[in-house]
């Protein structure tokens, strides 16, 4: 096991890694910019090193500074956290070249999953289901009809040079294919000067469901079930739950096995998440994150497994401490991401936290670097706290979440706490009836009207 780990990150994830190291009895080095001198994880770490100015490029993305800090402090491993350099293959290479352990996946998986095209190819080769569609350009209406029949309706005809929704047409059924094909082509021609189009299945109202996998260096791969992350705004997840309110046990086992088999086929190492769109009982691979996820605590809550501890153990060459058969899912968990931003206008609200009070009692976990008197710096992302609640059932979990949100105080700035207070009482959240479009297309517009 490692003697000393340098945590190359900040905020809640730096604190999360610090706590895992402390639980393992590993010494910690916190690095920080001049804006984060007072950060909680800096205060709690065994050692800290100031590595540069507030701008991330000068500190948290400053590879020479991070490596030097690790060398000087005698760290033997670096945990990259989430974001910043966590999916940067160059960084992983440099860490490796300096004889330190990068607590993450093999570098070639960072590379392959970091490239959209390559990621889909690897995924397909590993048995992950992609959104079905034409293999390439559609040259005629007949080809379009054939491809649509193979793919299955509804289909989307898209400009090859397109973007931003232009040159995109949906055909709900065979009756609409002719009209959709010709108008997509002419729109594509007008917008991009190129009428090349291709076709794929149209997902009208999908859900975002991701599968957590974990693999050790001995070739053991286990999936830890799914997380439902459809409550999103601008592709940013706001509230996640595990298990998904809509998957059947059979679907859970099915997609879990597919994900674990794919990771095994790739020879994957460490923590990874396969993200899927889910609609009408079908899963479609979007991307794979080759790192810890922000929403990992809900998986920890229902499995009882400490993912970050497991990740560090794996990086140290130890085998998984459980097999697939050992993994059981108990109860229901929800995570609320609390951001320093206005609950409905989403304007950032950095500043000094005069009063922070965390909720308590059974089934409640708080991952937050806030403390009363802490000044939230304006330089970084707005995530300031994660509230994770676990209950016997989804209904029990929601009741506890409502209680925990009521107990929480972050003052005086507005935060997304109030958004979550609205969400947790919303009929569609309570029934689990939502998709990735729901927050932006239904919930927020209705809010504005009130």
């Amino acid at each position: 096991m490692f003697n000393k780990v340098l945590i190359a990150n900040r905020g809640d994830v730096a604190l999360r890694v610090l706590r895992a190291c402390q639980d393992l009895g590993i010494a910690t080095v916190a690095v920080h910019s001049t804006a984060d001198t007072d950060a909680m994880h800096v205060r709690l770490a065994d050692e800290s090193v100031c590595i540069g100015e507030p701008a991330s490029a000068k500190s948290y993305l400053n590879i020479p500074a991070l490596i030097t800090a690790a060398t000087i402090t005698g760290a033997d491993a670096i945990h990259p956290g989430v974001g910043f350099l966590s999916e940067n293959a160059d960084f992983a290479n440099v860490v490796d070249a300096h004889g330190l352990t990068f607590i993450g996946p093999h570098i070639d998986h960072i590379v392959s999953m970091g490239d959209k095209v390559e990621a889909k190819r690897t995924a397909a080769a590993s048995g992950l289901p992609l959104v079905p569609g034409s293999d390439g350009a559609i040259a005629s209406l007949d080809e379009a009809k054939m491809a649509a029949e193979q793919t299955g309706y509804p289909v989307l005809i898209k400009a090859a040079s397109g973007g931003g929704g232009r040159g995109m047409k949906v055909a709900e059924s065979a009756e609409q294919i002719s009209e959709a094909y010709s108008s997509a082509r002419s729109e594509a021609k007008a917008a991009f000067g190129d009428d090349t189009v291709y076709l794929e299945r149209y997902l009208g109202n999908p859900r975002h469901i991701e599968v957590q996998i974990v693999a050790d260096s001995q070739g053991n791969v286990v999936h830890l079930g799914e997380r439902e992350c459809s409550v999103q705004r601008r592709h940013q997840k706001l509230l996640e739950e595990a298990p998904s309110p809509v998957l059947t046990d059979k679907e859970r086992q099915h997609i879990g096995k597919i994900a674990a088999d794919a990771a095994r086929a790739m020879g994957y190492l460490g923590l990874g998440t396969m993200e899927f769109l889910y609609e009408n009982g079908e899963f479609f691979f979007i991307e794979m994150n080759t790192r810890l996820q922000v929403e990992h605590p809900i998986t920890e809550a229902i499995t009882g497994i400490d993912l970050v501890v497991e990740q560090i153990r794996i990086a140290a060459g130890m085998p998984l401490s459980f097999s697939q058969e050992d993994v059981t899912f108990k109860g229901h968990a929800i995570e609320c991401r609390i951001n320093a931003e206005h609950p409905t206008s989403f304007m950032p609200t950095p500043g000094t936290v005069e009063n922070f009070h965390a909720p308590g009692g059974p089934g409640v976990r708080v991952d937050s670097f806030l403390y009363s008197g802490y000044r939230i710096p304006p330089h970084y992302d707005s995530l300031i706290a994660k509230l994770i609640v676990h209950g016997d059932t989804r209904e029990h979990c929601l009741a506890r979440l409502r209680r925990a949100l009521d107990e929480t105080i972050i003052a005086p700035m507005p935060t997304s706490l109030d958004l979550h207070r609205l969400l947790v009482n919303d009929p569609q959240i309570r029934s689990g009836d939502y998709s990735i479009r729901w927050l932006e297309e239904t919930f927020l517009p209705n809010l504005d009207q009130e």
Partner: protein
Amino acid sequence: MSKAPQKTSDAVDERVRLIRELAKVMEDTGLVEIDLEDDNVSVHLSKTGTMAPAQMMSPMMAAPAPAAPHSAAAPTPFETAKAAAADKSVPDNAITSPMVGTAYLAPEPGAAVFIKEGDNIKAGQTLLIIEAMKVMNPITAPSAGTVRQILVDDGQPVEFGEPLVVID
């Protein structure tokens, strides 16, 4: 600063004018907070809804370290360095390290040091070297002057922003 009543009165006006102007700046630019500090004055302006009820403590804002106690038993290299630096009551104009690294006071082991306290130096003269990732980065004097204090030892690890040398 003069203490004569006349002058004080002027000073009040000056202060009020400064704050008015800064408030205007906030209005124009959408800033919600301004902190300004110079030799004469220190100002903090806020437009964020800072509305803590009186019983919502400010005590911990006054507390120097509201977070948790350091759990480390022994002081770490950096903590030692910081404590040492703090002890010497470093002047504000100290030359600080532009990077994390190891400070060397001489060009190579056994060689003569670049500077000694009391030396008169020229602008651009090398004061010490910071090694980071096997690269030697010379730290040079920004202006001519006299070396008042050398705040690091040979081979000492330094962080970004750590005071190295005082020249005046």
